[in-house]
């Protein structure tokens, strides 16, 4: 936690309300996100119990597995989920725009520009909490190697037709969510915690109900009181008033309500199977429907509050203006979405179980690069984030007190003006350190010359008021002429902000192509065309 965030948390403690830690919204929010509120069965690896899902806050679809240990019922759930998620995703695959991309020409080996399709927009999946993101990934993993009857007529338990495809998409969403700054799959708790500091710890912020209670408590109630109730208050039956955002359920709910309802469902099912004539079967079918309805009601009662909380959180976030670089990062998400669309259309096999060494290293490098990009962009978009970087000595802001024209040496002297900035900040400037400021959205570089004193170059704080004078030499973005273009050099009296970090991230580390993986790192991946084997099945397997 940076000191500024700690301070914001402590202010929240004393005021009883969350305090902002961002002044703009740093993530893209779709006009039409697909909200997914899943529940899972305790102790089973990713056996879904049910979910609310949909794009209409007033009309979520309720999907329920009345007996989570029953494979057919689980498949029915996944098939229904596929029928909601896939059309939603498909709606974004067709509208494209032309975009340029640099590729290596396979014949000449040269870098050339090619025009390709880029999906004009992309789907966005919203889950309540980080555990929901993991669950999406887990569901994806559990489905993508399934075989349908069409793919393999001999498969013992064929999956419904579109389930493996859903698995591939959920896997893609889950993987993309690991990329810093991406917005294809987001957890509302992460989103809210990025923008507000509560008076509780980050562990407690994982609870959507209590997080919201700090940010927007009902009425005038202090946030801590509301948060405490959201987290712990139970009804006379011992049930939490605010059910956890899942996918895990509260043990008291499992033991007192869910287990008896599932048992009743099992009994009704066996009774129906044992019915001796049509009349009896009719009766028992009615009992089975009622038992199933009971489980459905229970699942809805535990997901609906979370569903509403998710939309409440989205309302709060939408009220923040979007950060200037957010569309740029969303474009990267659109590229990622388009690329996955293309892999599926090209008939490529599902994502492997474990990445080969080069892919893994590439992903890691990409994540580091995106993290640096995100950090830089958030700071440029948001003075409150920049304040944190300034406090850390990674940026400084102040007023220009002097500009002296100077030129580079050489055949064609170019402008290299010396700019003095008076700042209260304490940047960690090394000798000839490069610094950058944003000029019309592009970084302009300068180099640290020294600290100015009253009489020329000196060190420290000439006026003894905590301000230092930093002398910089501006290096670029001043045009081709001998005189700098108008507006390209700061003027006396201007407020400026320079960063010690770069604004743009260039391509990642050079790694070999996957085909040239050294054997020390596992060697090249196997035949890319090879279709991975499905998971083995056992009688008791869960998904």
């Amino acid at each position, binding site marked *: *936690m940076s*000191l500024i965030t*700690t*301070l914001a948390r*402590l*202010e929240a*403690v*004393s*005021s009883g309300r*969350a*305090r*902002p830690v961002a*002044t*703009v919204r740093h993530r893209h929010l779709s006009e039409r996100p697909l909200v997914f509120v899943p529940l899972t*069965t*305790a*102790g*089973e*690896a990713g056996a879904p119990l049910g979910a609310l899902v949909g794009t209409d*806050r*007033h009309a979520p679809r309720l999907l329920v597995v009345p007996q989570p240990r029953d494979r057919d019922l689980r498949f029915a759930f996944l098939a229904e989920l596929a029928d909601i998620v896939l059309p939603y995703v498909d709606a974004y695959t067709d509208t494209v725009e032309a975009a340029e991309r640099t590729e290596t020409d396979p014949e000449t080996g040269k870098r050339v520009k090619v025009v390709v399709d880029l999906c004009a927009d992309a789907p966005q999946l919203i889950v309540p909490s980080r555990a929901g993101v993991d669950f999406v990934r*887990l569901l994806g993993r559990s489905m993508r190697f399934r075989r349908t009857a069409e793919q393999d007529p001999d498969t013992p338990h064929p999956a419904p037709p579109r389930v493996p495809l859903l698995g591939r998409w959920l896997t893609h969403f889950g993987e993309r969510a690991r990329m810093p700054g991406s917005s294809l799959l987001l957890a509302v708790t992460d989103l809210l915690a990025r*923008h*507000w500091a509560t008076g*509780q*710890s*980050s*562990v407690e912020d994982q609870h959507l109900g209590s997080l919201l209670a700090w*940010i*927007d*408590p009902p009425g005038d109630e202090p946030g801590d009181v509301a948060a405490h109730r*959201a987290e*712990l208050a139970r009804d006379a039956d011992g049930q939490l*008033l*605010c059910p956890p955002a899942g996918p895990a359920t*509260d*043990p008291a709910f*499992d*033991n007192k309500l869910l*287990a008896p309802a599932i048992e009743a469902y099992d009994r009704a099912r066996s009774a129906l199977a044992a019915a001796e004539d049509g009349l009896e079967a009719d009766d028992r079918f009615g009992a089975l429907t009622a038992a199933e309805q009971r489980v459905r009601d229970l699942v809805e009662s535990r997901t609906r*509050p979370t*569903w*509403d*909380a998710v*939309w*409440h959180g989205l*309302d709060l*976030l939408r*009220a923040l203006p979007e950060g200037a670089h957010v569309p740029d990062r969303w474009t990267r998400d659109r590229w990622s979405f388009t690329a996955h669309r293309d892999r599926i259309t090209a008939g490529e096999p599902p994502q492997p179980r474990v990445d080969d060494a080069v892919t893994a290293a590439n992903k890691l490098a990409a994540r580091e690069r995106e993290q640096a990009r995100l950090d830089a962009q958030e700071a440029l978009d948001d*003075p*409150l984030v920049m*304040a944190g970087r*300034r*406090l850390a000595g990674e940026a400084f802001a102040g007023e220009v007190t002097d500009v002296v024209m100077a030129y580079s040496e050489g055949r064609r002297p170019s402008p290299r003006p010396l700019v003095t900035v008076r700042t*209260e900040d304490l940047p960690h400037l090394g000798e000839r350190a490069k610094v950058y400021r944003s000029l019309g959205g592009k970084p302009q570089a300068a180099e640290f010359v020294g600290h100015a004193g009253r009489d020329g170059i000196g060190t420290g704080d000439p006026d003894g008021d905590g301000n230092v004078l930093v002398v910089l030499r501006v290096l670029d973005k001043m045009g081709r002429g001998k005189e700098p273009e108008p507006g390209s050099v700061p003027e006396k009296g201007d407020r400026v902000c320079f960063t010690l970090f770069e604004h743009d991230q260039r391509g990642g580390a050079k790694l070999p192509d996957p085909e040239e993986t050294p054997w020390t790192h596992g060697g090249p991946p196997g035949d890319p065309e090879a279709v991975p084997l499905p998971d*083995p099945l*056992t009688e008791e*397997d*869960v*998904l």
Partner: protein
Amino acid sequence: MPPPRTRETAPALRHRLAELRGPDVPAKALDARALAALAANPGCRRRALLDGAGVNKTELASALGSPSAFGQSQFAFMRGDAFEARVKADGGTELLRLVHERLDPSAEPPSGAHVPDLAAAGPEGRTARTELALREATESGGWTLLDHPMLALDVAGSPAFLEPDAVVVHPDGTWTVVEIKSFPMLDGAADPAKVGAAARQSAVYVLALEDAAARVDPVPQVRHRVLLVCPKDFTNLPTAAAVDVRKQRAVTRRQLTRLTRIEEIADALPEGTCFAPDLPQERLTAAVELLPATYAPECLAACELAFHCRARSRAAAEVTSVGRSARAELGGLTTVGDVLAAAHGTAGDPADPAVAALRRAARLRAEALASAGYGARDEVLVDGEVPAGAESQDMAGASAGGAPCH
């Protein structure tokens, strides 16, 4: 055969601890999970004493009006049991196969391994029985599986009895701790947080097993790689991984020795102090208050008293209630009021680097908020509120109809 070292607590202390627990309240045994958690917050005297005295903290928390939230779903419980039974079925064939394959492939393959009966009366009896079985197995030169053995570990002067899922004695006379968990190993990897917790727990067993080994001559080697058995992918089939617990073992050992001796803490309590759960809430609160605590949010995952201690910590406006790291950044300032006063310039010595940093942070924060059009510090508390006019029918409807948590 030398008798196992008895870890009898001195009678006077035992008597004192029984008094603290309350008349006729049985002592609650410490398990490895509690011990691993104890080591996670070794500075907490409150926890050290209550655990050491065998106070049932779950009951105490309820009696204090802040019941703990730890509970297990019967679904998880049933699945865990079914999985463990499956792993140990058939004389532990599958389990021993995994130990052989993952830890000791050069040994003879286990077949017809010995599975001694460890039943005995009481934890002391079971511990003695286990130690006897371990000794015999080590001499036998074959594979032996000890199913739910009982081990004793000295914790801050009192014995804790521990029951690992299994211990395997190898043909070369070395001993291995086996931990069976029902979280899946998916594509060869399991949730690192859960593996970490299992490793810390296993490290406690390794320490206890080493104590038992020290009483055998020659001293057998306790392996520092334990076997973690989990369901494979989405199935109920076991798979296993060797987990090196050297680090956790060293940490736990160090923490255990650092645990303040219970005796000392007990001596500091006034005569008549008692933690019996049937006492009135105010008396219990006062009694618990006599024990110095070091609450941090990490307690929430580790200690039954967390909600009680959190409430006290918040009531005292301790900065650590928002995170342990807050403490480190703030130098000597420990309460929210002190920090804010220092930050806003109404108190504190500006020459103190922590105070100076806070002032800079407060100034930068206020400046940034102001530049973004946010009002003064006290005016606008929540800026994410939907501006008037943006509140559509939709939203009003949603918050009215959808706020059962409120």
